[in-house]
């Protein structure tokens, strides 16, 4: 009975010891896991904080870059506006229309700058930054377009002025012809002037339509502008140069006709003859534009 009791007590004691050790081990293990959990949470918090900091820095960087992009563009557009306002050949409505277009872009960019400065999301700021470029294409499309329109309008004014002169010169040639003078050379020169003007007007009309068609949505504005620049160069170097050469040849011809005219003894004719001498000299200096 005592031995049996001893075994019983020994078994219970062993089991108790084993259970206690297990419990101690388990408790010890739980304590280590908690620390790891806290460390994990801390690490995650730190990572989130760093990510937020990085994002804030990137946002500020985008805002700063955007401000620079906008400032440069507005400065460039203001230069264009100054060029436009100082033009003496553009008609008032042409000038007003182009100036309004430029002002609209300046205004749009200014509004965009205000929006970007207030952006709090990096994604939104990046989208707005792209809008500075894709919404305006100031360098690739807008400024070249307005510049080319200014040139074309100016050339159109020149052409109109010369065109208005042609019938008056024709009248004078007719008058000389009625007096029995040989005006065949003068008539040929004037016909050439008219032909050049026709070419110029047709080129300008075609080019202006093409330039006006270019917009922000045009895929490659440069591809449209390149041939127009060539056309303008052609008008300057060839067509207008020919007209100037025609005028230069007409002046001595008129001079000869007026000298041989009995009416040239009048004071007004003398004045014309005097200026004709000077003009003949200067006519020799006329060179086609490079």
């Amino acid at each position: 009975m005592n031995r049996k009791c001893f075994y019983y007590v020994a078994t219970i004691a062993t089991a108790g010891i084993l259970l206690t050790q297990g419990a101690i081990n388990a408790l010890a293990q739980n304590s280590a896991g908690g620390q790891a959990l806290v460390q994990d949470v801390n690490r995650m918090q730190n990572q989130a904080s760093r990510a937020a900091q990085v994002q804030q820095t990137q946002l500020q960087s985008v805002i700063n870059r955007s401000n620079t992009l906008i400032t440069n563009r507005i400065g460039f557009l203001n230069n264009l506006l100054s060029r436009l306002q100082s033009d003496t050949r553009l008609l008032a409505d042409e000038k007003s229309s182009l100036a309004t277009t430029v002002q609209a872009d300046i205004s749009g960019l200014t509004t965009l700058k205000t929006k970007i400065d207030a952006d709090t999301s990096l994604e939104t700021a990046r989208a707005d930054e792209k809008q500075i470029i894709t919404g305006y294409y100031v360098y690739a499309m807008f400024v070249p377009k307005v510049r080319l329109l200014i040139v074309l309008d100016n050339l159109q004014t020149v052409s109109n002025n010369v065109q208005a002169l042609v019938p008056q010169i024709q009248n004078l040639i007719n008058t000389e012809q009625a007096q029995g003078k040989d005006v065949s050379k003068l008539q040929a020169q004037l016909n050439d002037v008219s032909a050049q003007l026709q070419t110029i007007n047709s080129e300008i009309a075609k080019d202006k339509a093409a330039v006006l068609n270019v917009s922000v949505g045009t895929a490659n504005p440069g591809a449209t502008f390149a041939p127009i620049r060539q056309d303008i160069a052609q008008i300057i170097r060839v067509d207008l140069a020919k007209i100037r050469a025609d005028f230069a040849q007409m002046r001595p011809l008129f001079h000869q006709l007026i000298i041989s005219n009995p009416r040239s003894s009048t004071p007004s004719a003398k004045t014309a003859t005097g200026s004709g001498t000077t003009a003949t000299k200067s006519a020799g200096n006329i060179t086609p534009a490079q």
Partner: protein
Amino acid sequence: MDENIQQGATQTPIFQPATSAPVPAGDRSKSLYLMIGLVVLILVAGGLYMFFYGKIATNSALKPVVPAINPTSQTQSSPAAQIVTEANIDQTLDNTDKTMQKSINQATSDLNDVSKIDSTQDSTNGL
């Protein structure tokens, strides 16, 4: 009595020829009113004339003469604005040539400016 009769006999009857018919009092006042009316009318007409004439004269003296066409509002006069004659044909052609030269120079300068524009600044690469 006789004396009176004699006196009366010798006394020549006073005969006053009727140079003008006696005017009734009503007609006289009418004429007077007519005269006064005429004078008043002349005075009023004169006053009005002086008033308006003086006003017109003052206005024309005060207001500056405004040219029909403001020369500064015109961007450029057409060469055809003046009639081309033998006397001015040479000067006209010369002026036109100079104007063309200026326009050509400006257009050339503008074309150069256009070709200098750096369109790569509108590249979205890296954004």
